[in-house]
């Protein structure tokens, strides 16, 4: 093997790679926010008394968890315009990743709601709070602490999933890596640096989340 390493080309494109990384983080952040809204609504539906709401929530979770994101993404980007829903590529990606994330987050939030002791809800009822007030004022803040680790690992895996945006030419890290790869043929350097960037970012996020958890832990 007489491969000459030359990181010059990759170093010259550092701004592109970093902007791609930032876009990936942004896409993941927006998607997890929308996903959290979906997840929260879904989780309250999944734990409600209404059978219809429970059925709908479980159908949503089962359906989207069992689909590849790439299929959802291509459907949203290429097929939905046929049905009159036009989104540009970034919006398509955020929409796809959000519904996908939502399906996982429903389960996360559901576990969170169930982790809140029943006595808290009963205490709220005894105080004369309405069901929505109990959810907003008691259950939600209490469960947040319990689900933080799961939320964090979901964010990390969403961040990794943003690499799929390259499939519809959203200019994030993997997109630029492919571009540099085909333009310079510095194959090993490009992919080594790209995956190191992903690994490094994931490690940093995981570290920050652990700090946050330690800080929020009840004495």
């Amino acid at each position, binding site marked *: 093997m007489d491969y000459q390493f030359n990181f010059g080309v990759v170093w010259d494109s550092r701004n592109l790679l970093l902007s791609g990384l930032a876009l990936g983080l942004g896409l993941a952040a927006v998607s997890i926010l929308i996903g959290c809204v979906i997840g929260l609504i879904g989780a309250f539906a999944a734990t409600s008394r209404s059978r219809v709401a429970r059925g709908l929530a479980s159908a949503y979770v089962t359906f989207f968890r*069992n689909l*590849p*994101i790439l*299929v959802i993404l*291509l459907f949203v980007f290429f097929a939905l315009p046929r049905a009159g829903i036009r989104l540009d590529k970034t919006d398509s990606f955020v929409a796809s990743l959000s519904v996908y994330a939502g399906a996982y987050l429903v389960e996360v939030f559901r576990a969170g709601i169930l982790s809140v002791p029943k006595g808290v809800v009963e205490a709220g009822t005894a105080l004369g709070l309405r069901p929505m007030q109990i959810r907003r004022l008691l259950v939600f803040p209490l469960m947040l602490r319990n689900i933080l680790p799961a939320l964090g690992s979901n964010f990390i895996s969403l961040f990794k999933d943003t690499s799929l945006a390259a499939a519809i030419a959203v200019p994030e890290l993997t997109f630029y890596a492919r571009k540099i*790869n085909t333009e310079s043929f510095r194959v090993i350097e490009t*992919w080594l640096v790209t995956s190191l960037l992903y690994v490094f970012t994931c*490690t940093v996020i995981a570290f920050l989340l652990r700090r946050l958890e330690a800080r929020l832990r009840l004495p």
Partner: protein
Amino acid sequence: MDAFLQQLWIARRALLDGAWLTVQISVVSIVIGTAFGVLVGLALTYGPRFLRWPTRLYVDFIRGTPVLVLVLAAFYILSVIGIQLTAVQAGIFALAVFCSSHVGEIVRGALEAIPKGQIEAAKSLGLNFRLTILLVLLPQALRQILPSWVNTGTEMVKASTLLSVIGVTELLLATKEVISRNYMSLQFYLFAAAIYFLVNFAIERLGKSLGCRMALKGAR
């Protein structure tokens, strides 16, 4: 609907071939990945230090990298360093590597959950290390491993769609090609989604029923 059925009939060969390739890719990468993953899990739990550290590094590196990047890297890098593989083989290699790191973590978690008394009991019975693993630890770990392992199965079927990016005509790329002929994107993407859903749903169901059957009596 009639038009769709007619197009579906015309495209049946292409789609069936694609679906068959998806099944092959998933099965082969799961088998290789699992075999390697069990070794990774053992190395992480019981390996000597000089083995444990590189394995830890391997697992963390692979798990921190998106599967798509693994697939692209395998596709491009392997040919540059002189390993000539077809796109399918390179893709299977990437998926197997991905699978091995996940299975490795699952196995490690299950092995660490086994009470230490079990190893001590095996030692006092005079079993050597290999027999302890084969007869005492792995059978007990299996109870925990199986449900999550089946989950990895659905992950691998989902990840197999990424091979469409490097030009492997599995179900998704086959669907794309059919759509580029007849422009019925709505119907055919839904059709592909339905197939992926059914396959994964079946695997998930299988995992759940296995989990129920393997749970210890009274443990649930």
